[in-house]
């Protein structure tokens, strides 16, 4: 039988993306309820996604915003 933690690892991304079937979701949750290691890794993945989004977000330079506005086509 496949290592349940390895299976849980495979389920992590679809689980966090909410695309598992109900049965798969129940199976993942049953394992997570009893496995602290997988639970921590799932929590880490969730935090990582939030952190990556925050760290990768750069405000658009004001100068670029002005350049884009200047590209508008003047009314005749």
């Amino acid at each position: 039988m496949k290592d349940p933690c390895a299976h849980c690892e495979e389920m992590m991304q679809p689980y966090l993306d909410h695309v598992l079937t109900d049965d798969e979701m129940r199976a993942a949750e049953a394992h997570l309820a009893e496995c602290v290691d997988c639970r921590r890794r799932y929590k880490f993945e969730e935090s990582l996604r939030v952190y990556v989004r925050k760290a990768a977000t750069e405000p658009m330079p004001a100068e670029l915003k002005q350049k884009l506005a200047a590209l508008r086509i003047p009314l005749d």
Partner: protein
Amino acid sequence: MPLAYPRGRNSNVPGAVREGMGHAGTVDRMDAEPEDGQRLATEARDRVRFEEDALALSDQVYRVARHLASSREDADELMQETYARAFRSWRSFTPGTNMRAWLLRILTNLNIDRGRRQQRAPQMTPLEANDYFLYDKLAENGDGISDEEQVVERLSQDDIVSALSAVPHDFRDVLVLVDLGDFSYADAAQILDIPVGTVMSRLHRGRRILKRELAESALEEAT
């Protein structure tokens, strides 16, 4: 996400004036001159509204563009090319559909046209590690894990930005659209013109590649 819609001015309803249809409305001509003026005024108003709506989305488009492009300079150019094209092609946008996705489709096509797909060769694709790899590496180098959020914060913003830029384009495009741009799998598939199944597999692999890159930079910093 249709990228084009008919703007025919020829109504099949003789003599009728069809109003209230916004951009796609058609007006029959009973009296050419005033209606021509009215049509031009309507078109001008629609175009101004389109430009304002597109500019209001520019921060959100940039958030994605910044990481689809290889550098800030490239992102800057790509944004300008995208908006210049969008303003020229405004008639091909279907009102009521997702303008952000429409702009991103122009942007990703331009990005491909600019020849930034040189990493396509499969042998150049780094092998991703498994999904738990990064956590395990950070845990090995920490003093025991008590809070997963603190573990994440061992990664610097520079680590994240440089790891993202190291993900090959095909994977990065999907990763950036879904995880930074909040697009659904279906929207990403339409923007990139690839099947949803391909979006899912590239997204999952892209995230694993990103984590492998992050693990490498975290390990370098630890030594």
